C-alpha cells in the first residue's frame, strides 16, 4: 500500500511541476498522453475489468470529439461544459450499444464493435449531416485560454485541465473497482454463469460498464478535440481502436495506472520507430511491439504487479 501511495504522490508532484520545466511542445505531448490515457482507462474498464472485448472505442472517441466540436461550434456552449455533455452522450450510446452486445461473446462481440468503428467515420461524412459535422472537411474548434485570468499559457492551461480530468476519472475508476460493483464486474469477467447465480444482475452490469467505458473514452475524445482544435472523420478510423487496444495491453490489463504507460507507448514509440528508418518505420514499430510482448507478456502492469507481490512477500 505504502509503495502505491508514495508513487501516486510522486506522480502528482511531477505532473503539477511539469509545465514549469517543459517547453510548450512537450506540454502539448504530455497533454495528448493524458488524453489517450483516459481513453485507454475507459477501454480497460470494459475489456480489462469486465472481459468484454471492444474494437469500437474509436467510435466513442469520435462521438465525444464531435459532440464537443459541434456543441461549441453550433451551439456556442463553453468548452468546459462540453466535457460532461460528451461523456453523457457517449454513456447513452455505449449503454444502448451494450444491449445487443449482451447477446454476443468474444469474437462475435469484437465484430459487432468493429462494425461500429468502421461505420462511424462513414456516418460522420454523410451528406445529410454535413451541416452539423462539416462532412469530409471536419469542424474547427477554438483553443481556450486560461480561465479566471490565471497566468498560464493556453498549453499549460489545457494541460492542467486535462490532468484534473484524468485524476478525477482515475479516482472514480479506482473507487468503482474497489466497490461491490467492481467485484461484480470481475466476477462477471471470470464466470458470468456463476456471477448470475450469485444474484448479480449480469445484463445490467455489462450494459452499464459499456456505458461508463464509452463515457470515459468520449470525454477523452472531447478533450482531444479541444487540444487538437480540429475534428475530421478520417481521424477516427478503425486503426485508432487498434491503437487503444495496443495501449491497453502494453500498459497492463486490469491495472489502472497502466493507462499512462500504454498512452506513452502509442504516442512516443512510433516517433522512435521513425527515427530508426523512414522507409521501414512501420516494420520497426511492429518489431518493437512483438519484442515487448516477449519481455512482458502481461504488459507493464504484469511486471509491476509481480514486483509488488515480491516486495510484499518479504
Amino acid at each position, binding site marked *: 500500500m505504502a509503495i502505491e501511495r508514495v508513487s501516486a504522490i510522486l506522480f502528482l508532484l511531477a505532473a503539477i511541476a511539469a509545465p514549469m520545466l517543459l*517547453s*510548450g*511542445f512537450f506540454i*502539448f*505531448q504530455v497533454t*495528448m498522453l493524458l488524453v489517450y490515457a483516459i481513453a485507454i482507462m475507459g477501454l480497460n474498464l470494459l475489456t480489462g475489468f469486465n472481459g468484454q472485448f471492444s474494437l469500437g472505442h474509436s467510435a466513442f472517441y469520435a462521438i465525444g470529439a464531435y459532440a464537443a466540436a459541434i456543441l461549441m461550434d453550433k451551439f456556442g456552449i463553453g468548452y468546459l461544459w462540453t466535457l460532461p455533455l460528451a461523456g453523457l452522450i457517449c454513456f447513452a450510446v455505449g449503454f444502448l450499444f451494450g444491449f445487443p452486445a449482451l447477446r454476443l461473446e468474444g469474437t462475435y462481440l469484437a465484430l459487432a464493435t468493429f462494425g461500429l468503428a*468502421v461505420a462511424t467515420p*462513414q456516418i460522420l*461524412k454523410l451528406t445529410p449531416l454535413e451541416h452539423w459535422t462539416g*462532412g*469530409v*472537411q*471536419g469542424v*474547427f474548434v477554438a*483553443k481556450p485560454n486560461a480561465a479566471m485570468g490565471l497566468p498560464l499559457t493556453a498549453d499549460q492551461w489545457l494541460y492542467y485541465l486535462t490532468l484534473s480530468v484524468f485524476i478525477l476519472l482515475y479516482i472514480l475508476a479506482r473507487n468503482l473497482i474497489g466497490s461491490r460493483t467492481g467485484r461484480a464486474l470481475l466476477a462477471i469477467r471470470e464466470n458470468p454463469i456463476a456471477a448470475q447465480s450469485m444474484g448479480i444482475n449480469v445484463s445490467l452490469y455489462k450494459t452499464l460498464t459499456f456505458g461508463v467505458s464509452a463515457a470515459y473514452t468520449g470525454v477523452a475524445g472531447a478533450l*482531444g478535440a479541444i487540444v*487538437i*482544435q*480540429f*475534428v*475530421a472523420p*478520417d*481521424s477516427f478510423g478503425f*486503426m485508432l481502436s487498434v491503437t487503444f487496444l495496443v495501449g491497453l495491453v502494453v500498459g497492463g490489463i486490469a491495472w489502472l495506472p497502466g493507462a499512462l504507460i500504454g498512452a506513452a507507448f502509442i*504516442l512516443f514509440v*512510433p*516517433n522512435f*520507430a*521513425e527515427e530508426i528508418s*523512414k*522507409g521501414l*518505420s*512501420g516494420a520497426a*514499430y511492429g518489431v518493437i511491439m512483438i519484442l515487448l510482448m516477449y519481455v512482458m507478456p502481461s504488459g507493464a502492469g504484469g511486471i509491476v504487479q509481480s514486483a509488488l507481490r515480491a516486495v510484499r512477500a518479504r
Partner: protein
Amino acid sequence: MIAALATVAAASMAMAKGKYDVGASDTEIKMGHFNPYSGPVSAWGTVGKLQTAFYRMINEQGGINGRKITFITYDDAYSPPKAVEQTRRLMERDQVLGLFNPMGTASNLAIQKYMNNMKAPQIFVSSGAVAFGNPKDYPWTMGWLNYASEGRVYARYLLQNKPDAKVALFFQNDDFGKGFVAGFREALGDKAKTMIVGEASYEISEPTIDSQIVKLKASGADVLFNMSSPKFAAQAIRKLTDLNWKPLHFLTSSSAQIGSTLGPAGLENSKGIISTNYYKDSTDPRWKDDPAMKNWNAFMDKYYPEGDKSDTTNVYAYLVSETIVQVLKQAGHDLTRENIMKQAANLKQFSTPLLLPGVTITTSETDFFPIEQLQLIQFNGRTWDFIGGVIDGSAK
C-alpha cells in the same frame, strides 16, 4: 585549415547583411515537412523521400544563395492529431522557418490556425482543398492546386462540346472526390440538375467498385466523370470494358498516368479517356527523349535510386521542390517568414521544363493557388494527345 576557416568566416561575414527569422541564418535554411511514411496511405511517403534527395542535390550544388538547406521531414501517418504534434515539434523544437509542402487535407486543416497564429509559412500544401487558397483569412497558408479548378475544366468542356450530356459522377468519398464534384457542379450552374443523372461514391477500404459502375451504367448516362485514385480508376476502366459501356470518360489528372493506371487497366481499354495535366507523365513514351525527363531520370538514378520511376508522384514532388527553391531564391538574403510568404505570392509565370509546354506557375496576393493552368489531354492508346491549348481553371 585555418585558412579555410578564415575563408568561410569571410564568406559568412559578406552575407551578414541578411535578415532572418527563426530557422534561417547565414549558412542554413531549415525547412519543415510531414507526410505519411506509415499507415494505409504510406504510398505518399515517396514525396518526402524524393524531396530529401532533391535538397541533398541542391546542397551539393552549393545550396541557395550560399545557404545549405536542412530539410526535416516527419511521419504524420495521415492523422490530424499526429500532424499537429509533428508540426509543433518542427516549429518549437526543431525551429524551422516554416512548413513546405506538408501533405493531406485534414492534417493541414488541423494545423492551419496554429501556423497562422505563429505567423509562419505553410506553403504549397499538398492537397487540393479550396480552404488553402484563402489569403484573406489565412495569409500564411498557401495551396498548390485546387481540385475544383479541374472539375470546372471538364464542366466547361462539356457545356461547349456536349451540352445535352447525361453525366454520371463516380468519386472517392472524401475531400478529394467531393472537391472535384463541387467545382464541376459549380461550373455547370443551373444545368447541373438536369445533366447529372447518377452519382456513386466509394470508400478506399472497399476492395472493388464493380457495383458502383453497374449502378452508374443503369442511370443511362453517356458521360462518366471518374474521380478516383489510380487503383480504383484502373478497376473502373476495366469494368467499363466488361460491361461494354462506352461513355465519354473524364478521368482526374491525379490518376491519369499511363504507368500506374492506364497500363494496368489495359491501354486498349483506356483509349479515348479525357483528362488534364500540368506536368509531364514520366511513363508517357511521348517524353522519352525529352531533356527535362532525361534530367529527372538522371536525378532519380543518382540521388533516389530506390524510388519508383513509374510513379509520377515523384515528378510532382520534384516539381514542387523546384518551385520552393525558386521562392527561396527570390527571397534572397531576406529570409524572414514574412518575405517567404511575400515571395511565394509573387511567382510570375514561373516555369520549369517538367511542366507541360505553355503551363506556368503564377501567384499573387489574392491568388494562392500556384497551379491553375491545365492542359486537356486525350489518350490515343499509346500516349496523351493535347486537346486545344492550355486553359485556365480558376473560378470566373
